[in-house]
């Protein structure tokens, strides 16, 4: 991992991860919606040791081709792609107004599928590298409290799984990252979430998984793998009565 494209570089969850990359002297292309925020992140990562930091201001839900051609032309031969953006709209809001439900799917699933499909071409030709996407433990099972977000992230997990199985033949690794709740802007109003993790811890796990040569699906913090495995075993008949 030397040259990394980050789609959603101003996501608060990955800021410690970006600093880790910078301290290791990586080259980064940061893509996000606000140039002002990108500038702040860029100067910070440069000061912390990143070899090179490029930025590109774009609405990732709207202009996949622009992003792709910029990356190909200005940041050629990148070896890693990290898709890290997402939104978590309130479930009640999504139930009350279908516009919000549709937007949640558009942002977290459809635009991500489009971008990953476009960027997969690069890796197909390159015949090596890593494509990583951040989904969520919420995508492992639909819960009454968060199933629109869960459906989007679950869909993204399935998509990444399929992409992994296709890209395997080209020697490209696809990494699915499933964090539990993390202290970020996204969860700022829900600080009493159970087992909420620190973004430093999550950054370490993701960094290790990116640098490893064989990890496919990671849960971070790690215990979520077993919690979700057990949760998936609960029969639907029982699960539907659980107030979670």
């Amino acid at each position, binding site marked *: 991992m030397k040259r990394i494209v980050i789609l959603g570089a*101003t996501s*608060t969850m990955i800021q*410690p991860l970006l*600093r*880790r990359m910078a*301290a290791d002297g990586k080259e980064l292309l940061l893509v996000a919606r*606000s140039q*002002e*925020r990108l500038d*702040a*992140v860029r*100067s*910070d990562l440069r*000061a*912390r040791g990143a070899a090179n930091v490029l930025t590109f201001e774009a609405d990732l839900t709207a202009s996949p081709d622009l992003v792709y051609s910029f990356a190909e032309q200005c940041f050629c031969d990148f070896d890693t792609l990290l898709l890290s953006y997402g939104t978590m709209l309130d479930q009640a809001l999504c139930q009350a107004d279908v516009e919000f439900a549709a937007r949640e799917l558009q942002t977290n699933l459809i635009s991500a599928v489009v971008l990953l499909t476009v960027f997969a071409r690069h890796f197909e030709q390159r015949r090596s590298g890593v494509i990583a996407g951040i989904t969520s433990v919420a995508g492992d099972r639909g819960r009454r409290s968060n199933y629109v977000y869960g459906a989007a992230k679950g869909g993204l997990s399935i998509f990444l799984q399929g992409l992994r199985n296709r890209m395997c033949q080209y020697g490209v690794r696809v990494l699915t990252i499933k964090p539990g709740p993390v*202290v970020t*802007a996204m969860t*700022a109003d829900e*600080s*009493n979430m159970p087992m909420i993790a*620190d973004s*430093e*811890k999550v950054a370490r796990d993701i960094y290790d998984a990116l640098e490893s040569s064989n990890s496919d699906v990671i849960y971070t913090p790690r215990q979520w793998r077993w919690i979700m495995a057990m949760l998936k075993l609960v029969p639907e008949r029982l699960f539907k009565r659980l107030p979670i």
Partner: protein
Amino acid sequence: MTTASTLPVREIVSDRSNGSKIERYQSWGRYPKAAHRNVSKIYWRDQLEEALRKAEPESLLAYGMGRSYGDSCLNSDRDLLDCKALNRILDCDWEAGRVCVEAGITLGDLLEVIVPRGWFMPVVPGTKFVTVGGAIANDIHGKNHHRAGTFGCHVKQITLHRSDTSPVVCSPATNSDLLQATIGGLGLTGVIGSAEIQLKRIAGNAIEVETLTFRDLNQFLDLSAASDQSHEYTVAWVDCLSRGGRGIFFRGSHAEKNVSCRSTKITVPFAFPEFGLNRPAVKLFNRAYFGLKARKPGSAVIHYDPFFFPLDSILNWNLLYGRRGLVQYQCVLPAGDAGAVKTIIEAVSKSGEACFLAVLKAFGEIQSPGLLSFPRPGLTLALDLPMRGNRTLALLSRLDELVLANGGALYPAKDARMSSTMFKSGFPNWASLVPYIDPKFSSSFWRRATAE
């Protein structure tokens, strides 16, 4: 890498049992307890404008790492802006040693970036877990006050976000009055978005440190006067439970060497039971500590971290003081002779309170730039005491009288209880800050210390 930024929020949680978010933001002494109405987390400077616009009059205060001991970082029953995520380095010039940073960055985080490049913070306090914004707002001092003055002396420029104007750039050349009000201004003049700091050149990460003992305060004064000439950093630990005021004197300077840092971090799992810090135990500790240092005085070359931040290796040592927390009492006595300090130490010694951290330092002559800066020429003494209710408060009131009688002042950043008379006599020009206070800002400390 950035251990510092992992600490805060959870560090601040005091009562997990009641689970309420507003209870999470306390100060380092955990006394007095505050309950905030609303805490907004700020991740980007562009969010400040809306947060300031939405706020009610006298409702806001920026909060960083919460390392002030008392209530100067609290705003009970009102709102906080949690700004510690504003921790980016915005610009750096490694030739001139200038950095421009967002004010939520901690000194520890910044040191990890600048030290390998041959620079050091111009002034550091006793913990690296403070933000640059907090360092400016309290105009902090360090072991090199006699050489470098306060932190504020090295601030070249700040951008201040206020509710009544667009962001204001303040430097010694432009809006210098607002800069002076903000340095030592206890966060009341607005939110510091970014700050440009002049760093200090070093030739290695090591400090050459010398440890000496003294038998009484007169000996301390002689040592201090001589060492301030020869060393960049000087500070002393005084045994408050001994008569006469014996202690240990530390003096050091940057060395042209690099050494590795043993970083063992200990976390205190819960607030200790209060009987742990009783007087006999502390007396025993003090005697052992003094004995240990007295047995092998001498010099060593050590990493800067254990030299400047010895207590940081116990991440939340404040919990050692138990559920009711601790109070720190830091005064400055302008006379500079041992008499006043001696009476204070005797008063503590006689009181029966268990005080095992007492730090003594001679401030230098360099004028602090802030309107309400605490450091001034003289001796400063800082005592950590377990908070044991009225008994502790009564002792501190007795100390107040001694400080007042000697024309001294108390340090707001450490204070949880001084009267407004005490504050106003220590800072006679306190009212000159008022015109610069942002109309939407206030703090628990300010309301208490300026009450009629």
